C-alpha cells in the first residue's frame, strides 16, 4: 500500500508495508501512482506510446480491484497522464520512472503486506502480563467534566486501594510475566496522590521483589498535581520512570473543564506552580504535561504552545472521548478545524525546533529508524492481555477505560484471570481483525487504535472510533512531514536525540 500526500510544501510518499518514507519532487510524486499494478515498461508505454493509456488500461482492466495507492481512488488516469506529459520534459519523466522502478526493486515502494499470517500466529501465542494500571484511588478532588472515570468513581463507589490488594496485584504481575523482565506499573486514579501512603508502600514492595524475581519495575504516576509537595516530588524523582501531569492548557480552558470538586476555585492557579517546580526538579527525568481538548477549545494548538510558554518541554494533548450528546464532545463538523490545528502546530513545532527552542509533542514523535518491530505495530495496544487495570478492590479489567463495566471483568487479583474467553477475544484483536484498519495507511503507527473507544462507539472492540482515526491519520502525516522538514537541518539530530532520550527515560 502506498499513501502519498502533500503537506507544508513537501511531497511525501509513505510506503506503508515496508515502512519506507520518501520525500520527492513533483514529477516523481505525479508518476508514482502510475506504477500501481504496473511495471516500468507498462508505465513507459502508458506515457509515451500513441494510444498507450487506452491500451494499458485495457490490459490492466480489473474492475473492482482496489488500488494499492490511495491517491488513485479519485484520480482520472488519462487526464493525469496528459498533465504529466504537458508539465515535464520527456528525459525528466524517463529519469523519474527509472528512480521509481529502483525503489520498487529495492523493496521500498509498493512493498506487499506479508505479515498477516505471522501476526495471527503471534497473537495466538501464550501471552504474559507486563503492565498494570493500578487504580490506587477511586476518588478525586477535582470534578473534571469529561472524566471517563466519573470524577474518580468509575460507575461505582469511592474507594482507595489497600496495600494488601496492591501487593497481590504486584505478585500477580510477577507471576504472570513469564521471562519478561521489564514490568510497568502506573499509579492511576481518580487521583493517586489521595492514597499516597499505599503508593509508597507498593513501590517499596515492588523493589524488594525485583532481585529474587529478576524483574525491573518501571513505576509511573498520572496526577492532577493538586496535592504535590516536596516529599511527593522527591519520591517520584527517585522512583518514577515517568510522571504524567494533567493540565488542559490556558487558564480559562483548564478551569472550565477541570474545576475543583464542588467549588469554583481555579485548579490552574494551584497546579501550574507545582508542575513548573516538578518539571524543574525532574531534570533529565521523563515527564509529560498532558491535556485533553474538547469542542470548547478547538484551537488547542494555543494550549500546547501555552505549555511551552510555561516552560514545559514534553507535552501531550489528547482529544476528548465522550458521548456525542455532551456539549463538549468533538463532533464530525469539528474535524476539519482540528486537522488544520494539527497543521498549524506542526509548522510551529518545526519553526521552534529550527530556532533551538523546540519541544516534544507526544503525537509528533515518530521513530522512523528504531521504532517498534512489526509484531508490536500490528498486534494492538495489549489491553486485555499484556496490559490490565486493577480496581481498588482487586478486580481485573482489560484496561482503565473498561473499569466499571462488569461485562469486561476478567477476574481478580485473588483468582487470577477467570474470563479466558474475553482474554481470547482481546488476543485476536489486531489490525487484521478490523476491516477499517486493513485498508488504512496508519495501521503500523496506531496499531488498530483503542479497543475501548471502538467499543464505546460501535459496541465491539474490532471496529474503530472514526473521528479518532481521522485525527490519528493527520497526526501521523504531520509527524512524518516534520521529519522531512527537519532532515538535513542541524537541529534534526538534536530533535531526534531529544525524542530518543525522552523515550529511553520513559521506559527506563
Amino acid at each position, binding site marked *: 500500500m502506498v499513501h502519498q500526500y502533500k503537506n507544508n510544501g513537501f511531497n511525501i510518499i509513505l510506503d506503508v508495508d515496508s*515502512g*519506507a518514507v520518501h520525500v520527492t519532487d513533483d514529477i516523481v510524486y505525479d508518476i508514482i501512482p502510475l506504477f500501481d499494478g504496473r511495471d516500468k515498461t507498462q508505465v513507459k508505454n502508458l506515457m509515451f506510446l500513441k494510444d498507450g493509456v487506452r491500451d494499458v488500461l485495457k490490459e490492466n482492466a480489473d474492475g473492482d480491484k482496489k488500488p494499492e495507492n490511495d491517491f488513485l481512488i479519485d484520480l482520472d488516469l488519462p487526464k493525469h497522464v496528459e498533465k504529466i506529459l504537458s508539465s515535464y520534459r520527456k528525459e525528466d519523466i524517463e529519469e523519474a520512472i527509472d528512480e521509481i522502478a529502483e525503489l520498487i526493486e529495492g523493496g521500498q515502494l509498493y512493498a506487499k503486506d506479508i505479515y498477516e499470517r505471522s501476526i495471527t500466529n503471534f497473537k495466538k501465542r501464550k501471552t504474559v502480563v*507486563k503492565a498494570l494500571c493500578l487504580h490506587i484511588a477511586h476518588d478525586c478532588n477535582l470534578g473534571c467534566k469529561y472524566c471517563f472515570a466519573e470524577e474518580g468513581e468509575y460507575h461505582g463507589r469511592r474507594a482507595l486501594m489497600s496495600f494488601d490488594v496492591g501487593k497481590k496485584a504486584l505478585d500477580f504481575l510477577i507471576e504472570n510475566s513469564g521471562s519478561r523482565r521489564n514490568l510497568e506499573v*502506573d499509579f492511576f486514579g481518580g487521583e493517586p496522590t489521595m492514597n499516597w501512603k499505599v503508593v509508597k508502600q507498593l513501590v517499596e514492595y515492588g523493589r524488594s521483589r525485583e532481585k529474587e524475581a529478576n524483574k525491573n519495575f518501571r513505576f509511573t504516576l498520572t496526577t492532577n498535581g493538586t496535592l504535590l509537595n516536596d516529599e511527593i516530588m522527591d519520591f517520584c524523582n527517585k522512583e518514577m520512570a515517568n510522571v504524567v501531569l494533567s493540565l488542559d492548557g490556558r487558564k480559562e480552558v483548564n478551569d472550565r473543564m477541570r474545576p475543583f470538586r464542588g467549588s469554583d476555585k481555579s485548579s490552574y492557579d494551584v497546579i501550574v506552580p507545582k508542575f513548573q517546580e516538578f518539571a524543574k526538579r525532574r531534570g533529565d527525568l521523563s515527564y509529560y504535561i498532558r491535556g485533553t481538548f474538547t469542542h470548547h477549545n478547538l484551537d488547542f494548538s494555543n494550549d500546547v504552545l501555552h505549555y511551552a510558554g510555561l516552560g514545559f518541554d514534553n507535552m501531550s494533548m489528547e482529544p476528548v472521548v465522550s458521548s456525542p450528546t455532551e456539549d463538549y464532545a468533538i463532533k464530525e463538523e469539528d474535524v476539519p478545524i482540528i486537522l488544520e490545528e494539527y497543521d498549524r502546530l506542526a509548522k510551529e513545532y518545526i519553526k521552534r525546533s529550527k530556532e533551538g527552542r523546540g519541544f516534544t509533542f507526544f503525537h509528533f514523535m515518530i521513530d522512523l*529508524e528504531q*521504532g517498534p*518491530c512489526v509484531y*508490536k505495530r500490528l498486534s494492538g495496544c495489549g489491553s486485555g492481555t499484556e496490559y490490565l487495570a486493577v480496581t481498588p478492590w482487586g478486580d481485573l479489567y482489560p484496561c482503565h477505560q473498561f473499569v466499571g463495566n462488569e461485562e469486561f471483568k476478567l477476574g481478580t487479583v485473588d483468582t487470577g484471570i477467570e474470563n479466558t474467553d474475553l482474554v481470547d477475544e482481546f488476543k485476536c484483536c489486531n489490525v487484521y481483525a478490523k476491516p477499517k484498519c486493513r485498508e488504512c495507511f496508519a495501521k503500523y*503507527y*496506531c496499531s488498530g487504535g483503542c479497543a475501548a473507544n471502538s467499543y464505546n462507539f460501535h459496541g465491539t472492540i474490532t471496529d474503530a472510533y472514526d473521528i479518532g482515526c481521522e485525527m490519528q491519520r493527520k497526526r501521523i502525516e504531520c509527524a512524518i512531514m516534520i521529519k522531512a522538514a527537519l532532515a538535513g537541518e542541524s537541529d534534526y539530530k538534536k530533535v531526534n536525540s531529544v525524542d530518543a532520550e525522552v523515550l529511553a527515560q520513559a521506559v527506563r
Partner: protein
Amino acid sequence: MKHVKTLNTRSLKDSMTNGGCGECQTSCQSACKTSCTVGNQSCENKKTK
C-alpha cells in the same frame, strides 16, 4: 537519487527476524491513556543488543 530523498533505511520486514520480544513499553502507559500510538515508541531489543 535525484528526485527522491528517502528518510529511513530500516524496513519493517527486517524487524520480523528478531522482533516480538515484548520488552517494549505498553503504549497506554506513556502519555496518552485515551488513544493508541505505537509508532513513536522505541524498540528495546535494539538497545539491549
